[in-house]
C-alpha cells in the first residue's frame, strides 16, 4: 500500500517535472527564436544599415592627391613640374593621449620640433593654444622631414602635397603661365590647357590601428588617382633663351615701356615668345599684374609702316599695280583729304618696289586710292586683322578694324600706312607668315602634342589655313622685302649675309591726348630668315616707347638680326656662300 502510494507520488512528480521541462523548453525555444529572429533581422535585413554605421565609425575616407601633368618644350625639356612636399601639423588629440602614459611628452616634443625647425618654443606653445591641429610649417626640407620621422604617429603629422615648380624661372613665363595654390592654371598654357594638365585625385578608405597607424591590408581604393596628361609645347628653350638674352639687352639699352618678340616657324609653330616686363612664375604674386600680361597677344598698337605690306600685296595680287610702276611722291609733302601727308625724304618718282623699300607714305596712299576701300578692307580681313588668330593662349584680343561703312573720309589715307587700325604682335607676325608660307595664312599655336599616361601621343591638329595671296605675289613681295634690309632700304641693320632675309620696319607714333605724339612711338620690325639648310623662320619685334632711339630700323631691326643669326647658328644652318654671290650678281655688281 505504502509502496503503491510512493510510486503514485513519484509518477505525479515526474509528470510535474516533465511539464515544467516542457514549459522551460517552450520558453527557451521562444527566447531563442526571438534571439535568432533578431540576429536574422540584423544580418539579413538591416545588414547595410549597420555595416555603413560601422564603416563610418572605424574607416576614414582620405583623398589621395595626384600629380598635375608636366609641361615640356619641343625637345623634351621640363618647363613645369609638380614636386611633392610635406607640411608639418601637430595632432593634439594624440599628443594628449600620449601624455597620459608618458608624462612630459609635449614638453619633450616641443623642444625637439623647435630644434629641428628652428622655431622658438613659445610660438609652438601659442599655436597649440589656438588649435588642436595647427600647421607648424608648410614646406619641410628633406633634412627636416627625416629628423621628424621618429615622431610620426606620436602627434606629429606630415601631410603630403604638391607644389608647382618652374625650373627655368622667368624663361618663357608668358607662354607657360602659372598655377595657383588650388592647383588650377591661372595664366598661359597652364590656364589654357588646364583641362589636360589637371589631375584627378583619388579616394581611399583606411582603417587605423590603436597606434593610429593605417592598417594597410584593410585599405580600400574607391577612386583611383589619375595623373594629369603631359603637354609638349612648340617652344624651343634654346631659341627662347636667345630671344630672352637679346630682349634683356635691348630692355637695358633702350629703356622702353615694353618689348614683345615672337619667333614663329612658317606653319605657325611658335618657337619663342617673350615680353618685357616679365615675372617669375615660381612667385607670381611678387610682381604687379601688368608684368604678367602677355603683351604679344593682349596689347594692340597701330602698326604703322609694317602695314604697308598688306596694301602693296593687295594691289599686286589684284593686278592694280606692277612692281615697276612709277608713282609721283610729291617731293615729300602732299595735301590730301584736308590733311598734309609727309614723307621723311623728298621723293619724286618711285616705283611700287621703291615705295615699300623706302617706306613712302605718299606712294602707299596713292596705291591704296587706286585699290579702293572695299578691296583694301577685304585684304585686311584676308590677312587676319580684326580677327582672333586662335593662338592657344589666354587673353587674346581681336584688334581694331572698322568696316568700310564706318570709315571717315581720311581712313583711306590713314589705314594703308597703318593708322586708324589696331593690331597685336601675333597678328602682325601671322600676316608676314603669309608671304613665307606661299600665300597661306598660318595658324599660330604653342601646343605640339599631348602625352597621356598610357603612352598615347595626340599631336596638335593643325587648322586648315586659307589662301590669301598667290605664290607669284609672295615671290614678288619677298624680292621687295629682301631689298628693305639692303643698304638702300630702311632696315640695313637687319641684313645677314648668306640667308634670304626680308622684312618691314614700322615706326608708329602713339596717340597722346588725341594727337599723334612726336616722341612716343612703337618701333617694330617684322621679318623672316631662311636658306636652303634651314626652316623658314618669321620674327616679330615690337618695342613700345624706346627712350634712346626712335625708328624701327634702328631700334627693332638690330634685335631681329641678332635673334635671327643666333637662331640660324643654333639650328645648324650656316650661311650659304653661293646665295651671297647670286645676290651680288642680281644687283649687277
Amino acid at each position, binding site marked *: 500500500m505504502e509502496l503503491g502510494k510512493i510510486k503514485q507520488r513519484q509518477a505525479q512528480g515526474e509528470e510535474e517535472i516533465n511539464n515544467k521541462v516542457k514549459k522551460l523548453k517552450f520558453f527557451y525555444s521562444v527566447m531563442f527564436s526571438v534571439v535568432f529572429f533578431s540576429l536574422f533581422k540584423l544580418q539579413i535585413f538591416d545588414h547595410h544599415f549597420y555595416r555603413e554605421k560601422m564603416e563610418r565609425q572605424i574607416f576614414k575616407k582620405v583623398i589621395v592627391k595626384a600629380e598635375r601633368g608636366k609641361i615640356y618644350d619641343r625637345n623634351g625639356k621640363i618647363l613645369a613640374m609638380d614636386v611633392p612636399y610635406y607640411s608639418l601639423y601637430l595632432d593634439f588629440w594624440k599628443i594628449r593621449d600620449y601624455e597620459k602614459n608618458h608624462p612630459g611628452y609635449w614638453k619633450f616634443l616641443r623642444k625637439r620640433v623647435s630644434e629641428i625647425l628652428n622655431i622658438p618654443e613659445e610660438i609652438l606653445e601659442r599655436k597649440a593654444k589656438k588649435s588642436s591641429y595647427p600647421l607648424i610649417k608648410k614646406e619641410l626640407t628633406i633634412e627636416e622631414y627625416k629628423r621628424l620621422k621618429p615622431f610620426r604617429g606620436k602627434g606629429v603629422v606630415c601631410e603630403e602635397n604638391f607644389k608647382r615648380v618652374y625650373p627655368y624661372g622667368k624663361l618663357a613665363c608668358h607662354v607657360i603661365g602659372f598655377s595657383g595654390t588650388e592647383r588650377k592654371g591661372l595664366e598661359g598654357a597652364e590656364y589654357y590647357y588646364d583641362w589636360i594638365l589637371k589631375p584627378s585625385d583619388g579616394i581611399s578608405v583606411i582603417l587605423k590601428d590603436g597606434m593610429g597607424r593605417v592598417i594597410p591590408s584593410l585599405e580600400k581604393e574607391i577612386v583611383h588617382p589619375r595623373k594629369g596628361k603631359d603637354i609638349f609645347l612648340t617652344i624651343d628653350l634654346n631659341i627662347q633663351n636667345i630671344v630672352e638674352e637679346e630682349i634683356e639687352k635691348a630692355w637695358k639699352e633702350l629703356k622702353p615701356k615694353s618689348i614683345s618678340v615672337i619667333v614663329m616657324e612658317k606653319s605657325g609653330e611658335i618657337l619663342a615668345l617673350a615680353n618685357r616686363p616679365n615675372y617669375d612664375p615660381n612667385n607670381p604674386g611678387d610682381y604687379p599684374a601688368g608684368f604678367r600680361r602677355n603683351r604679344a597677344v593682349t596689347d594692340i598698337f597701330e602698326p604703322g609702316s609694317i602695314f604697308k605690306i598688306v596694301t602693296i600685296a593687295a594691289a599686286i595680287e589684284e593686278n592694280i599695280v606692277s612692281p615697276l610702276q612709277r608713282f609721283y611722291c610729291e617731293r615729300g609733302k602732299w595735301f590730301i583729304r584736308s590733311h598734309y601727308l609727309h614723307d621723311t625724304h623728298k621723293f619724286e618718282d618711285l616705283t611700287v618696289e621703291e615705295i615699300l623699300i623706302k*617706306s613712302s607714305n605718299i606712294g602707299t596712299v596713292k596705291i591704296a586710292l587706286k585699290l579702293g576701300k572695299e578691296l583694301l578692307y577685304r585684304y585686311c580681313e584676308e590677312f587676319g586683322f580684326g580677327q582672333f588668330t586662335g593662338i592657344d593662349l589666354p587673353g587674346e584680343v581681336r584688334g581694331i578694324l572698322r568696316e568700310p561703312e564706318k570709315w571717315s573720309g581720311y581712313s583711306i589715307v590713314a589705314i594703308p600706312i597703318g593708322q586708324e587700325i589696331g593690331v597685336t604682335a601675333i597678328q602682325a607676325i601671322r600676316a608676314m607668315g603669309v608671304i613665307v608660307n606661299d600665300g597661306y595664312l598660318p595658324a599660330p599655336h604653342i601646343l605640339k602634342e599631348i602625352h597621356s599616361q598610357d603612352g598615347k601621343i595626340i599631336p596638335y591638329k593643325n587648322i586648315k589655313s586659307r589662301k590669301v595671296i598667290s605664290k607669284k605675289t609672295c615671290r614678288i613681295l619677298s624680292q621687295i622685302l629682301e631689298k628693305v634690309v639692303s643698304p638702300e632700304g630702311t632696315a640695313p641693320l637687319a641684313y645677314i649675309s648668306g640667308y634670304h632675309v626680308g622684312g618691314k620696319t614700322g615706326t608708329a607714333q602713339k596717340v597722346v591726348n588725341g594727337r599723334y605724339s612726336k616722341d612716343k612711338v612703337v618701333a617694330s620690325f617684322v621679318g623672316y630668315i631662311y636658306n636652303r639648310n634651314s626652316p623658314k623662320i618669321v620674327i616679330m619685334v615690337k618695342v613700345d616707347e624706346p627712350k634712346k632711339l626712335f625708328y624701327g*630700323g634702328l631700334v627693332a631691326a638690330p634685335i631681329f638680326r641678332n635673334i635671327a643669326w643666333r637662331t640660324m647658328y643654333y639650328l645648324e644652318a650656316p650661311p650659304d656662300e653661293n646665295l651671297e654671290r647670286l645676290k651680288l650678281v642680281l644687283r649687277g655688281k
Partner: protein
Amino acid sequence: MRIFIKRWHIYITLCVFFLTVYVLISISLFSIGYKLKELEDKYKELTLINKNKQSEFLKLLSPSKMKEMMSKYNMELKKPEEWRYVEVFKEKEGFISGIGENKAEASTR
C-alpha cells in the same frame, strides 16, 4: 545525427585547425601589409627626394643660374662665333641718331 554526435571531437578539431590557419594567415597578411606600407613610405620619401633634386638640378641648368654662377666664379661663357652679318653705317645719315635728326626711315606720319 548520431554519427555527427559520435565524431564531434573530429569536427571541433577541424574547426580549431582551420580557425588557427585563418588567424595565422590574417596575421601574416597584416604584417606583410605593414611591411608594404613601410616600403611605400620609403618609396614616397625617395620620390620626394628625387623630385626635389631633379627640380634643383634643372634650376641649376637654367641659363640665368648658369650666368650667375659664371660671374660668381669669374668665368666667361663662350659666345658662339659671330657669323656674318653686315653692319651698315651710312656716314651722311648716321644711324646712331636721336629723335628727329638724320632720319633713316619714313615715319608713318
